[in-house]
């Protein structure tokens, strides 16, 4: 194990593994073009993966505001809905093409985030969560009532466009972009500012950080990404109505994926979303009637036994048993490299 860690570090295997994974994901739909009859890769697999990419983006967005900044947004799916409806209304009612309509959807989500955030981000803790949950329900009902524009309860039908590989590639690229942006933020001064706000908002403000501005900026960024996913989802689904778009557990999925993977880490939500998606696929297939119950149980189990998430539990500083074990291996790996370095020195010294 120690040898493995050292080799991993020496040859930067992490980077190679990531590059290989991305390459694999890019090449995956190729059999579909080359030899569609062979059915090596089915459209339904591509569709499944596309949904998974969406969940990864959504969880990563939620993590920006919930994990980095420490504001638990229990109504974040409101931006998904606004993006979906912004796009849907422009396409179905105004006859716009998809790309400009999608941009309108993103703008609607962003503007709403600035307005809503200016009010709700003044609240702390549970009050913010409840206010966002309220906003989610309120926007759903407003959309239901605005029948002339949104089609009300009977929904809107978008011009159908069935090209699974295209959606697959768009979402794959978008997912890579979002995760890259979040990785960048995490190591930037801006990212550290967000963590300072999470750790001690009053202290951060007094140490010269304009906390309100930072919160609104990150909230709007997360909302814009979420809105774009909403718009893409609407087009892919070709039909939107308030209950499908503002699905109750949509925010819950984001929270669940982030918590399962590891709150406030870059890769946590990605890993969490993959696990959740896989878990749900299995549950849907085998226990259709009970899948929500089992999903709820999983959430309870995470909070009880993995409060730091899967990735967080491997952190040597987390105080968990696995963390201690990882820490020991890492220290041994460090120690051995130091020893070998010392040995090399002592050999050289007499010369």
């Amino acid at each position, binding site marked *: 194990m120690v040898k493995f860690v050292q080799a991993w570090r020496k040859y930067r295997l992490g980077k190679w593994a990531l590059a290989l994974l991305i390459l694999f994901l890019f090449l995956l739909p190729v059999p579909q073009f080359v030899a569609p009859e062979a059915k090596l890769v089915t459209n339904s697999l591509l569709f499944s993966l596309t949904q998974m990419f969406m969940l990864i983006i959504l969880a990563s967005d939620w993590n920006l505001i919930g994990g980095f900044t420490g504001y638990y947004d229990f109504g974040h799916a409101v931006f998904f809905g606004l993006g979906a409806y912004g796009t849907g209304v422009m396409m179905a009612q105004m006859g716009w093409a998809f790309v400009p309509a999608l941009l309108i959807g993103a703008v609607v989500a962003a503007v709403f985030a600035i307005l809503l955030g200016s009010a709700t981000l003044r609240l702390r803790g549970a009050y913010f969560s409840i206010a966002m949950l309220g906003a989610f329900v309120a926007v759903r009902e407003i959309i239901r009532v605005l029948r002339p524009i949104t089609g009300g309860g009977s929904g809107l039908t978008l011009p159908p466009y069935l090209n699974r590989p295209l959606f697959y590639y768009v979402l794959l690229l978008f997912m890579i972009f979002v995760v890259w942006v979040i990785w960048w933020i995490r190591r*930037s*001064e801006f990212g*550290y*500012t967000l*963590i300072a706000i999470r750790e*001690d908002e009053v202290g951060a403000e007094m140490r*010269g*950080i304009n906390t309100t501005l930072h919160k609104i*900026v990150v909230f709007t960024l997360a909302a814009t990404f979420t809105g774009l996913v909403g718009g893409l989802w609407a087009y892919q689904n070709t039909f939107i109505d308030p209950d499908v778009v503002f699905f109750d557990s949509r925010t819950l999925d984001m929270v669940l994926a982030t918590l399962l993977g590891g709150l406030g880490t870059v890769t946590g939500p990605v890993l969490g979303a993959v696990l959740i998606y896989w878990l749900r696929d299995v549950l849907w297939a085998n226990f259709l009637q009970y899948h929500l119950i089992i999903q709820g149980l999983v959430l309870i189990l995470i909070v009880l036994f993995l409060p730091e998430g899967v990735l967080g539990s491997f952190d040597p500083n987390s105080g968990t048993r696995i963390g201690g074990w990882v820490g020991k291996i890492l220290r041994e790996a460090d120690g051995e490299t130091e020893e070998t370095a010392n040995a090399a020195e002592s050999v050289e010294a007499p010369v």
Partner: protein
Amino acid sequence: MTAVTQQQPLLEGRGVSKYFGGLAALSDVDFTVYPGEIMGLIGPNGSGKTTLFDCLSRVQDISKGQVFFKGEDITRKKPYQVAHLGLSRTFQIIRVYNKLTVIENLLLSQQWRNKGILKQLRPSGQQMEGRAKELTDFLLMSHVIKEKAGNLSGGQKRLLEIGMALMPDPDLILLDEATSGINPTLIETIKDRIRELNSKYNKTFLLIEHNIHFIGDLCDRVFVLDYGQKLAEGTPDEIMNNQAVIEAYFGADGDEGDDEYDE
């Protein structure tokens, strides 16, 4: 002292009042702090010292009166704006970012001065790490630089807070009970550091303190609060011999008062 008092004040409060409902935590407090001085702020528990600090750093709204810093009215400014003007503080109840390392804590305390969000998008650290390392040397904590702040001892956290307050190179530093819970040797270190910062770098200090010897050794002037009102102001010697202060602070008969704070 006379030379100092002829200068333009660095910090000036005019009739500063703070009400919590019907309770007047501060009423009509006037004070001035001149550049280059070390001023002490003492008073019994609940006399409004920390509330005054909170009003100055603008965490609390000022109910009445005005505060000027460097001639600028800061009565209605936001806390971060006051910090940008060059006023930093430490806290009675320690506030450090527990989950971040010592060096990250320090870096987080200064980089945001007058800088737009777009400029914050570069990777954190590099430029100011030199200054952060200097400060950890100065505060004798270079051996814990990579340690998470949450794992430090109480005394080390206090030192880290002082470092965080110094990081943006402020002109005025408010220290709220910087020596509470710290062992005597470390108190001497803090005292030396404050003196050095004051004489060498011309930093101005306003400190809340219960340790009378600390006040006596360091301060040019002392300012006493009692029940939210200014009770007295003067040199440490004048204050120690002021009958009203002795009654308020050390209890009615003041002979043994000094000993009480020796422990």
